């Protein structure tokens, strides 16, 4: 789905845990996340910490949408966030 959106000219960032699959299939903007069951969360954190993590992920994703790429590219979030 990410590829078809990009094919139609809509920059699309894919937030997912299994990055090798995303790259093999050919998603162009990939932000790695912490778990299959919670792409934009981390249940091991407190509620406030999890909100901050989600915000950091989203900021990373927005940056990816503003970045020119030439092929499948990973935009890693800062693990310390």
């Amino acid at each position: 789905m990410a590829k078809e959106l990009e094919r139609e000219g809509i920059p699309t960032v894919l937030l997912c845990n299994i990055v090798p699959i995303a790259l093999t299939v050919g998603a162009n903007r990939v932000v790695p996340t912490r778990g299959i069951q919670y792409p934009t969360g981390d249940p091991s954190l407190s509620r406030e910490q999890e909100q901050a993590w989600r915000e950091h992920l989203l900021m990373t994703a927005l940056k990816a949408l503003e970045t020119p790429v030439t092929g499948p590219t990973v935009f890693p979030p800062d693990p310390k966030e």
Partner: protein
Amino acid sequence: MLRIVHYINQFFAGLGGEEKADLKPEIRTGPVGPGRLLQSLLRGKGEVVATLICGDTYFAEQPEEACRRLADLLFTLKADLILAGPAFASGRYGLACGEVARMALNELAIPAVAAMHPENPGVQAAAAGAYIVPCGSSAASMKEALPPLLALGIKLASGSALSPDVDGYLPRGIRKNVTADLPAAVRAVNMVLAKIAGRPFTSEIPLPQFDRVSPAPPVFDIRQATVALVTESGLVPAGNPDRIESSRASHFARYSIGGLGAFASGKFESVHGGYSTDLANADPNRLVPLDVARRLQGAGGIAGLYDYYFTTVGNGTSVQKAQAFGREIAAEIRSSGVKAAILTAT
């Protein structure tokens, strides 16, 4: 005597070109057009008892109605075999031939084979179980295209076991158990040795070929962009109103998030069958980050969110389906001025 019914379009029936492409399904007794050549190839082994004709546009615009009408026409014919095409590289004709072959086999239990070029979009019917033999891209190869179509049809109608390797039809994505001569470990090591030595070998698991999409140009300033939220995580309103399947999803849905500040637990839930959904159901924003996206919107990080989010279940869902979902979503959001998409995947 094998009773064969042949499916062709308006063009090969000699009724006309594009101006006749909305022709409704109709029937003629005996062979028409390329069916005459089929009849001569049969040499007494069978008879083309009737020809079904349908306009390409008519079929493409209402495939279900076209199939229903064709099935009605087939009802009294007591066909032993349906042959469709060859459609060569013609897209709408190929779609029709593939669909007719699929419908006859799967829904009417009549052996059926279509012929078309391997890059015809109609070959997608093979994944749904249709037998499709490859042929050239234009009608100039009609003479070469018909014998394999007929041969596979006769063999299928005889009830013989078939395989794509031996019988030359396009793989239907069906795996059959076979007994190998050697254990898997030995076969794997033999393949590695052959690969190292540069000898030819055949993988037992053909790798899917994924195409590459040129990246979309980036958003110049995301703070001025409306962004759409898309997910394959199966997040739906509680109760799953559109019955999205927990695996092998056949459709996606869109739900309003207008005026919604976050996904509330209990009001939204995941119906994905491929992972444990407890953690997501406790806080659905772990699947689609609506709460933080709204906060960023309030702080000027993005101009806005599209009024709907799009959702399906990416669990065993076919690439073809996912592509179709992506195309439909793209068409909608592009016409609504959305500049970028955030897609979360489980």
